C-alpha cells in the first residue's frame, strides 16, 4: 500500500512552500523553532496533500487551535482552509453527548461487573476491555477520530498510517538531498576528503 505520486508531489510542494513562508532561517530562529516550523509545515502539507478525510480535518483543527499557527495555515491552504476546518455534520453532534455516553457506559459496565462478579472474570469481558483501552489509545494518536466507531476508526487509521509513512519517506529523501547538496557545496574539498566525510556521516 503506497501513497500516490500526486500525494508525494503535493506534499513536497506544500512542505517547501511552508518552510519558506515561515521564513525558516538560521539567522532568526533557534533549532527548536525551526524544528517546530518544519514539523508544522510537514503536517499541514500532509493534510492538504491528502484531501478530505476525517483525520486531515482533525489534524488541521488541532493545529489551528493556536492562533499563531492559524494565519500560517490560512496562508498555505488558502481556500482549502475554510473547507477543511468546516465541521462535518456526522461528527459534530456526537462529541456533545460523549460525556453522557461515557458516564452511562461506566454505570452500565459497573452494573455488569457487579452482576458478573459471582461468576468470575469472563474472558470476553477482559478481551473487550483490552480492545477498548487500545481503541482509546489509538483515538488519542490519530487526530480527529474521537467519535468514530470501530470500523471507521480502523479505516481512518489505515489512511493515516499510509500518509505518515509517505511523509516519513519523503522527509527522509529530502534530508538526504539536503545533505548531499550540502556535501556538494563544499566544493573546495577534494574528492577523497569528501568521500571520507560522506562515509563518516
Amino acid at each position, binding site marked *: 500500500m*503506497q501513497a500516490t505520486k500526486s500525494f508525494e508531489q503535493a506534499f513536497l510542494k506544500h512542505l517547501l512552500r511552508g518552510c519558506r513562508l515561515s521564513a525558516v532561517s538560521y539567522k532568526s530562529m533557534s533549532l527548536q523553532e525551526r*524544528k517546530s516550523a518544519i514539523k508544522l509545515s510537514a503536517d499541514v502539507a500532509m493534510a492538504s496533500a491528502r484531501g478530505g478525510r476525517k483525520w486531515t480535518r482533525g489534524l488541521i483543527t488541532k493545529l489551528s487551535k493556536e492562533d499563531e499557527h492559524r494565519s500560517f495555515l490560512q496562508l498555505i491552504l488558502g481556500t482549502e482552509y475554510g473547507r477543511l476546518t468546516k465541521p462535518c455534520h456526522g461528527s459534530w453532534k456526537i462529541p456533545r453527548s460523549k460525556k453522557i455516553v461515557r458516564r452511562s457506559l461506566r454505570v452500565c459496565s459497573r452494573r455488569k461487573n457487579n452482576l458478573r462478579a459471582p461468576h468470575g472474570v469472563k474472558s470476553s469481558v477482559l478481551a473487550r476491555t483490552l480492545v477498548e483501552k487500545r481503541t482509546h*489509545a489509538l483515538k488519542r494518536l490519530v487526530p480527529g477520530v474521537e467519535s468514530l466507531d470501530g470500523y471507521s476508526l480502523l479505516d481512518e*487509521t489505515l489512511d493515516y498510517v499510509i500518509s505518515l509513512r509517505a511523509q516519513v519517506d519523503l522527509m527522509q529523501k529530502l534530508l538526504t538531498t539536503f545533505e*548531499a547538496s550540502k556535501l556538494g557545496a563544499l566544493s573546495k574539498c577534494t574528492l577523497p576528503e569528501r568521500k571520507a566525510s560522506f562515509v563518516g556521516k
Partner: protein
Amino acid sequence: MNENNKFGLENSHGDHLSNHSSGVSADWQFNTPAVSAAPPHPSTAASLVPPLTSSPFLSAPMAEAFVPGLWNHRTMSVGGSNIQNSTSAISSIPIGRSIAMSSEGMLLSAPPVIFPPSVPHFPADLGFIERAARFSCLSGGSFMDMNLLRQSQSVAPARKASKVVMETQVQNTELSMTRDKVVSLPAAYGSIDQSQMDTQRDRRSSHISNSESQETNFSEGGQEGNIDSSDVAGNSSPSDLGANKRKRTIQDMEKDQVQRGPQSSSDATKDNTETKHKVEQNSSKHGAKNGKDNSEAAKEGYVHVRARRGQATNSHSLAERVRREKISERMKYLQELVPGCSKVTGKAVMLDEIINYVQSLQRQVEFLSMKLAAVNPQLDLSGERLLAKNLRRSHGSPLSIAGFSQEMSYPQVYPTVNPSDTYRRTMNTRLPTMSGYKEPSMQMHNNPWNEEIVMQMDYDANHPPNAQEINRKLDGFAI
C-alpha cells in the same frame, strides 16, 4: 437471486410437506421436460438442482465431509438421473444446516444442497426445487402455469398445495425480505414442523410492507451471491449474464404477480439498474468470501446477509457478524501495512502493534524535522532548486528546469540513471557511501547528484504498489 432461492426454499419446503406420500415420479416427469426446456442456462441448470445452497466456501467443505464424491458427480451433469443419484446422498446430509451466505445457488456447480431433514421427502423436494428453480429462467407467465401445474401434479391435499402456492405468492408479493426472513427460511428448513412454517409465513407476511430498499438489498445480495458462486465456479461472465437474466425474469415475474403492491414495480425497475450496477461491481471484486463487500454495503447503506450454517439467525447477531467481518477486513489491510504483523492474530494485539507503529512514525517525523532544521543552512539556498526539482518531477521532464548552473550536466546523468533498477536501489540504500559511483561527475556536479536523488524519488514513486487490489479500495490512494 435470493428471491429465487426463496422460491426454491419455499417450494421445496411446501412440497416436502405436501408430498408425504408424494408422487415422486410425477415430479420427476415434470422435472425432465423442465430441464430440457432450459437450454439457455446449461450451467445454471446443473446448479439449479440445489437451489438452496450455502456459500461455496462454507458448505462445500462441509458437504465434502459428509458426501465426498457425490457433489461433484451431481453437479457435473444436468438431468434428472443425476439428481436421482444424488438425492439418496443428500438425504444423508445432516439436518439443520442453515443456508449459508447469500450466494445464488443457481450458479454454483459445486456446492451441496441443503435440504429439509426429512429423508423420504428429498427426491420430491429436489425435483420440486429444480422445477422451482426453472421458474426463474422462464417468464412470469409460465411461472403461474408452473404453479398450477404443481398444484395439479401434487398428490397432496388441497390445503397444502394451496399453502405452497400461497407461499410462493407471498414470496413474490413480498418483495422485501428482511434478513430475518431469509435467515428464518433455513431455520424453517431445519425443522419439519408445520407450525414453524406457519410462524415463518406469519413473520413474512408481517413484513410485506417493507421498504423498497430491502428489495434492492435483496437483489444485491443475491447478485453478490451470484458473483461469489460464479467466482467459485470459475465462470464469472456467463454466470453473471445468467444471473442478470434470471434477475430480470424474476422481476418480470414479480411484475406479473397479481398481489403486487404498487411499490413493487418501481422496486423491480430499480432493481434492474441496481443489479446491473452490482454485477459490474461484483465482477470486479473477487474473493469476497463472505459474500459481502464493504464498499457495496457503504453504497447501499446496509447489507443483506444470510446466516451461515450453524450460526444464530438473529438479526442482531447477523448485523454483528457483518460488522465484525468489515472490521476484520480492515484489520487485514492494517496487518499488511504494519510491518511484522502478519502472524499476529487477535484484535487487541493487532491494535497494540498499530498503536506502536503510529507512535513510531510520529516520532520519526519529529526526528526528521529536527534533522531538517539542523541541515537548514542549505534550505534557503536550495529551497528554490528543490522546488524546481519537484516541479520538474511533476512535469516529468528533466530538462524543464531553468536557472541551474549544473543543468548542463543533467543530460549526462539522466541516461545513466535510466537503465538500471539496481542502480536506483543501490543509490537508495548506499546513499552515504556511493561517492565512488559518482566519481567522474562528483567534482563539478553537485546538483546532478541531487537531481539524481530526486529522480530516484520520482522513480520510487512510480514503482507499482504492492497490493493493487487493496489500493483500489482506498479512495484517495489509488494508484
